């Protein structure tokens, strides 16, 4: 597992070059659970803060190398979640990436389950919001950064 983590982080560094990729800071409470099931690719999640001017500020990267990871995304503030799937073949000297992004503004008393899957060249990212008190949950439609309106 340690070797795998090292390889994934190494891949992230390779992808990013010297662009300043850093681990997403761990804080609490954990309000976002990421469930990952990918095969044939490496998956990472970048989290960006969205400013009132609809500009994004990179916060950090989470390596989606375990089936379940919990992180904290600030409640009440919009964030941009970017999931990137990386395929790289050293022998063939090729690489390709596919990204999926969506805006997420967590509510204070809700938890979020993000299901990330990739298999047979088909990927899916689903975000489900669950109210902690009522247990009512709903799937959130994707909201791309283009939907942001400056305030």
């Amino acid at each position: 597992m340690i070797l795998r983590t090292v390889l994934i982080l190494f891949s992230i560094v390779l992808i990013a070059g010297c662009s300043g990729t850093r681990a997403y800071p761990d804080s609490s409470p954990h309000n976002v659970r990421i469930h990952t099931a990918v095969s044939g690719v490496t998956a990472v999640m970048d989290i960006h803060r969205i400013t009132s001017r609809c500009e994004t500020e990179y916060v950090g990267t989470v390596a989606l190398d375990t089936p379940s990871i919990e992180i904290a995304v600030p409640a009440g503030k919009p964030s941009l979640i970017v999931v990137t799937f990386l395929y790289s073949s050293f022998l063939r000297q090729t690489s390709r990436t596919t990204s999926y992004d969506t805006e997420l503004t967590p509510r204070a008393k809700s938890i979020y389950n993000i299901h990330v899957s990739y298999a047979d060249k088909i990927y899916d990212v689903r975000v489900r919001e669950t109210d902690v008190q009522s247990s009512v949950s709903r799937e959130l439609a994707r909201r791309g950064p283009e939907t942001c309106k400056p305030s």
Partner: protein
Amino acid sequence: MNVRFIPIASLLILSLFGCVTSMPQSPAEFRRVIPGSFMGNMDAFEVNRPLHDVASTFKARSAECLNVTVKSTSKSRSSIGTIQSSTVVTRYKSTVVAASEQAELHVQFHHESGVVGVHKEPAGGNYLMIVDAVPLDKSRTKITMYHPKFGYDALVTGVKGWATGKSAGCPDMSTVQAL
């Protein structure tokens, strides 16, 4: 996408339409050319879903999954030992045309850089796939897909999943043309 295969992919695209001097300029022309072409394929099947549901899925999923731009980079070593890097940028565009008696999904592509176009492109790019959905009755729909035979399995699998309702996942468009 492996850029070393771009020339092959381009040749296959051309062979889709035989020895023609132009690419199909409309969905109707694409439908007419694909069945008789060497590398073209036409699939027809029925799904147990009403046309309205199929059309809604096409609209929602194609907007999310198929309107993407893919950048691919590949490195190769030349005969004198230098490393050469190639980058191809391809923009995909989907359109859903829905009416009470038919729904259509059109997928087009345009190479923004890295590939020199030699044929006139229709507005929005060359056609890559056309999917027709027509109602058989209130709860069943006939799907007909026109697409290249090889190299586009992710796209075909993804759209079939939307039509049947079995999968809502997005095809990884970076794998398209990876022969």
